[in-house]
């Protein structure tokens, strides 16, 4: 995983990015995608096989909203995040940020502005911070790059402000430490501080707590809700831990094999899961408070195959409820309860879906 390419110092754009007023009249939706698709060609030069990492994804992220994107390995959730971070170019489809299509934004200033509005926090805090510099280095660098109007003294003040905002105190002292002097949880906070220094609108957090100890995960999750409430940022929280998604997220999007399986307000989706895959995910969560029970489930947890997929539901091979239609027609998302969509033929037919758990 690499950081977005950053220009060398001195080539900075004096304009400082497009921070003009949002053209989006709605004032509610911050970012949305329409039919976003990413295919990768795989195999040798003569191979025509195509991996459908993300297929026809249309999602919305509102202002001051934490949206959890849940799914297992290979569901396309990280690819989607990288599309949103513009680390990948979509095969087709469009991303609208504040109502404007990103494909229309071509200038360096536009790109830089978008990247500072929508920064990414990575999974591995041991790999995403340069070990040879003090932790102040990364923050100061992004401040220099993305907020060139600040004087060097203002930059230091701003660095301290964002470190305090993420709970790294005393900020002045922590800034002078080297990454190896910090715990995993502290390093991940540095990741959030770096993102925060750009005065972001939306933080893309790719499994930000999965490498951390259980005892400190909660602290990071609380930090995310605090950033939403106090700094007004939206967060796309990518995770395979659906219990933590429930804990922090306003909305939940469940992906399976590159497509959205289900989406809606997180409490509603988890209380009334419509898609059999969401039910499977839920049933797999170990809940120490629940009584001992080993289900008769036989699901092996094998990742879905999305190489040259044929039409039909991608979950059909694992779904105990699959009917003929599931093998022929790819289910579209449809609203099965207020503001609650699922892509399942069986659920849409009105049947009470109870596949797992």
């Amino acid at each position: 995983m690499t950081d977005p390419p950053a220009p060398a110092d001195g080539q900075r754009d004096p304009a400082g990015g497009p921070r003009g007023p949002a053209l989006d009249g709605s004032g509610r939706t911050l970012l949305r995608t329409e039919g976003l698709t990413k295919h990768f060609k795989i195999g040798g030069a003569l191979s025509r096989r195509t991996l459908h990492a993300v297929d026809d994804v249309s999602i919305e992220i509102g202002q001051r909203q934490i949206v959890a994107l849940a799914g297992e390995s290979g569901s396309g959730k990280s690819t989607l995040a990288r599309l949103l971070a513009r680390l990948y170019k979509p095969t087709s489809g469009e991303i609208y940020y504040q109502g404007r299509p990103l494909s229309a934004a071509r200038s360096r200033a536009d790109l830089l502005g978008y990247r500072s509005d929508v920064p990414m926090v990575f999974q591995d805090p041991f790999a995403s911070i340069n070990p040879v510099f003090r932790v102040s280095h990364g923050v100061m660098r992004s401040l220099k790059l993305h907020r060139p109007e600040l004087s060097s003294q203002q930059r230091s003040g701003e660095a301290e402000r964002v470190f305090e905002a993420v709970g790294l105190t005393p900020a002045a002292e922590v800034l002078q430490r080297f990454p190896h002097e910090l715990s995993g949880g502290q390093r991940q906070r540095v990741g959030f501080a770096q993102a925060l220094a750009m005065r972001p609108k939306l933080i893309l957090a790719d499994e930000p707590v999965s490498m951390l100890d259980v005892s400190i995960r909660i602290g990071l999750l609380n930090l995310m809700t605090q950033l939403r409430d106090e700094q007004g940022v939206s967060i796309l929280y990518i995770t395979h831990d659906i219990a933590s998604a429930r804990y922090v997220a306003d909305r939940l999007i469940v992906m399976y094999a590159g497509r959205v399986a289900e989406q809606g307000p997180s409490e509603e989706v988890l209380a009334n899961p419509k898609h059999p895959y969401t039910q499977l995910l839920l049933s797999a969560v170990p809940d120490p408070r629940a009584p001992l029970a080993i289900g008769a489930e036989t699901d092996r947890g094998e990742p879905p195959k999305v190489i040259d997929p044929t039409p039909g539901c991608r979950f059909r091979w694992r779904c105990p409820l699959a009917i003929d239609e599931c093998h022929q027609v790819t289910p579209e998302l449809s609203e099965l309860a207020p503001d609650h969509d699922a892509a399942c033929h069986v659920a849409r037919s009105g049947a009470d879906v109870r596949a797992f758990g």
Partner: protein
Amino acid sequence: MSSAPGDGILGPAVPGETAGAVLQVRDLTVEYAMERGTVLAVDQVSFHLDAGEFIGIVGESGCGKSTLLFAIAQLLAPPAAITGGSVTFKGRNMVGLTDRQLTTIRWKDLSVVMQSAMNALNPVKSIGAQFSDAMRAHGVTTKAEIADRSAEVLRMVGIDPVHLESYPHQLSGGMRQRSMIAMAMLFTPELVIMDEPTSALDVVAQRSLMVQIKELQEELGFAVVFVTHDMSLVSHFSDRLMVMYAGQVAELGATRRVFDSPLHPYSIGLLDAFPSIRGPRVPLTGIPGSPPDLARIPVGCRFAPRCPKVMARCTEEGPELYHVDGTLVRCFLHAENGAGHD
């Protein structure tokens, strides 16, 4: 619990053994000789494990759980060394045995499944070739026997034996983990030591692998030492649970009991660190602060600086392990029953 362990290739268990206990760890102490001083990673840990029993060892990074596991398996390398205590496996103290002596035990009676076992497989050898290597090293040389047993163990973990021809990169993460577990089963060991074998998998694959391990264990009767930082993972699978903190046993008791009524404030904190998938959505705090530096262990209870129930006494003297209804807990709140050990 499960049936008695199978006789395996080694023949019946050593006679004259105390009833049940396949593993007895007594006052095991491990130190790392570092430039900045001696780090006491494991401090007088004692526990026993009956045949066919599943013990979960939980704690956060740096609590010594992985070091303890390496010490039990006699896999420590400098600067780490066992500086005290014993590890009695099937009636024989393994501490101080030579590599040659250990070789006869490893794989056959005791096998180890490492964290991210998926990377522990040799990438340039097929799964079958790696199984064959392990079997040849332990004296099984006939091709038919190797092929039969390899196919059998792979089937046991739910993988089609055609994958004996596969190379690790051709398998998914879950299948690689299963292959590693199959390999550990080659000689039907009496003890399998696992270090976070599911931590690299996502939740569905994790659950499925845990169910598989439990089924195998009930079928074959081996005992399991299972180390993890994720307490909820073992909640439904282990018989007993050991919570470690700063190199020591903080609490040791029946798994269900520890989950239902944890005694040590650290266990309570760990349990409260899990957002629940059901029930009301309540704000959680986790455990603020971090564990002590094991090179500079503070006087008194090691959890005192993070403990919500700290008392004056806690910062002056270190608590022993106290007996509370069959559970051991290292906390002065439960000192009335007197010290004990497992």
